[in-house]
């Protein structure tokens, strides 16, 4: 009900809010319920409203309008013998909501098109069929708009939904079919999340890191993480991965590409070099992954996933001062400016030198290796690379640029963007 909630707060949310201690506290402060101790019945909110519709002929829905006033739809042409005061009293009695304003009949009556019972009937009829369509996100009786509301992921899905509801005999004009963001569970970066997205915690034998980004490499579906987040940095050992931790049902893939670190032109004598700290992992069969999606958390520093960033482009250049973000299992989403570009960096405790890496002044900590690094561009994000290191104070991180990762002597070409947008 995200869209509806922006403008209206359905009345029932008020008393549910008392039980759930949700964000409707401001409403419940002014419209106090007399039944906070009542147990939640097994009936749904829609059942309650349908019962109300039996008692109020033509009842089409109830909600709080933008001024906090109770608004009720009554179908035009329906004959009701009830006065506004009686309607208020009926609502108060049926919903167990003893509110003085309701009993006094302080209600705004709106002309409706459809009765709630009719909407519920259509909703019950559509529900089993509609969710068979891939890409349908939600169905709802929208009390504030006196219509059914079906949320879909794309325009193509919307067309299929419309065909289905017409074939089932539901009037097209009674249903609002709208594109909505995919609904992701309120999990953290350290919990099990499917489909896989960038920024989640991953586990390989003895270690924890972060999943960088989903990708397709030479027609193989998989994902990218740091080369040092494999059993041996450089070379393929078939490292197994789990998300978030090793368990019977959390296996997510096997390492299949991690070029060796070698001496090459531009590499200091006695050292071993690569242009990126990256490895490719083949996605395990039966595991879903969202190509081009990175977990978006509630705010900077938060680990709670509230949505996803969509990769719509790959960086073709990097400039000092550009503000980049990363999402990692330890410090979540952090953001800051590029402070150095194309730096050759020696890896502490090894003979490895990573060539032409970038530094970003932003929070980092152990466990963030493999994090996707990106720049927010309007509605999408541009992928910049993969985080692998940081300073001891956790104020600056180092990443391998995406152009380096896709060199022919590194992982080679990758498809990283969300379908249809790159």
């Amino acid at each position: 009900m995200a869209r509806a909630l922006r403008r209206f707060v359905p009345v029932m949310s008020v008393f549910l809010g008392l039980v759930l201690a949700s964000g409707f506290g401001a409403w419940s402060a002014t419209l106090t319920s007399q039944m906070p101790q009542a147990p939640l019945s097994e009936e749904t909110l829609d059942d309650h409203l349908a019962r109300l519709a039996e008692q109020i002929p033509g009842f089409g829905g109830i909600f709080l309008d933008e001024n906090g006033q109770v608004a009720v739809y009554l179908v035009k042409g329906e004959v009701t013998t009830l006065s506004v005061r009686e309607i208020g009293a009926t609502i108060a009695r049926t919903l167990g909501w003893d509110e003085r304003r309701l009993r006094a009949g302080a209600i705004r009556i709106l002309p409706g098109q459809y009765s709630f019972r009719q909407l519920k009937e259509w909703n019950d009829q559509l529900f089993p069929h509609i969710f068979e369509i891939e890409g349908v996100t939600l169905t709802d009786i929208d009390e504030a708009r006196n219509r059914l509301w079906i949320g879909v992921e794309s325009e193509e899905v919307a067309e299929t939904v419309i065909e289905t509801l017409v074939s089932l005999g539901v009037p097209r004009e009674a249903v609002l079919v709208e594109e909505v963001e995919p609904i992701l569970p309120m999990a953290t970066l350290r919990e099990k999340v499917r489909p896989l997205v960038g920024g989640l915690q991953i586990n390989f034998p003895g270690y924890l890191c972060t999943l960088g980004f989903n990708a397709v490499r030479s027609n193989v579906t998989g994902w990218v993480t740091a080369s040092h987040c494999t059993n041996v940095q450089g070379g393929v050992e078939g490292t197994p991965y789990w998300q978030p931790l090793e368990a019977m049902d959390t296996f997510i893939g096997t390492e299949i590409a991690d070029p060796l670190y070698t001496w090459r032109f531009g590499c200091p004598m006695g050292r071993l070099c690569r242009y990126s700290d990256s490895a490719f992992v083949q996605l395990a069969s039966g595991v879903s992954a969202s190509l081009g999606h990175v977990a978006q958390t509630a705010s900077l520093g938060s680990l709670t996933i509230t949505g996803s960033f969509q990769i719509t482009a790959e960086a073709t250049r990097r400039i000092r001062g550009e503000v980049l973000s990363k999402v990692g299992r330890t410090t979540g989403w952090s953001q800051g400016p590029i402070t150095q570009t194309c730096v050759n960096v020696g890896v502490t405790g090894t003979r490895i030198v990573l060539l032409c890496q970038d530094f970003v002044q932003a929070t980092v900590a152990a466990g963030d290796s493999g994090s996707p690094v990106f720049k927010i561009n309007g509605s999408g994000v541009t992928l910049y690379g993969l985080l692998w290191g940081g300073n001891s104070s956790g104020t600056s991180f180092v990443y391998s640029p995406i152009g380096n990762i896709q060199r022919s002597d590194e992982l080679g070409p990758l498809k990283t963007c969300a379908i249809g947008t790159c």
Partner: protein
Amino acid sequence: MGEKQELSARVEVMKPVGRTIRLKLRIKNESERHLTLLLGGRPAYNFLIKRPDGALVWEWQRGKIIQQILERRNLEPGEELIFEATWRLVDARGHRVPPGEYLVQGVLNLEPPEKLLTDPLSLRVPPPKKARK
């Protein structure tokens, strides 16, 4: 991390050899049960050299790039982890430190923001030997 209470952490200072001092950090499982630690970063250890007033003089990890990985490390009862580093008697800017008393402290980074710190150990930097004529 309840395991922290069951670990002992101490720092050792070797005898100076020329202008260098070897530092050793020992982490020991003092309990009678198997412990699992999450070590933060590779390398996960650090050494701090401070003046007696607490001002930081030198830090082993300063200027180093640490791989941001978390390692699960098992420690059997009585088992010890040992980490070593060398201090070349310089400050953070690479300048020789004056002779005198210093404090050395070992640090083991665990799952952020947890750290295991040793008690400070006093350390004397001797005056440079006079060159023979």
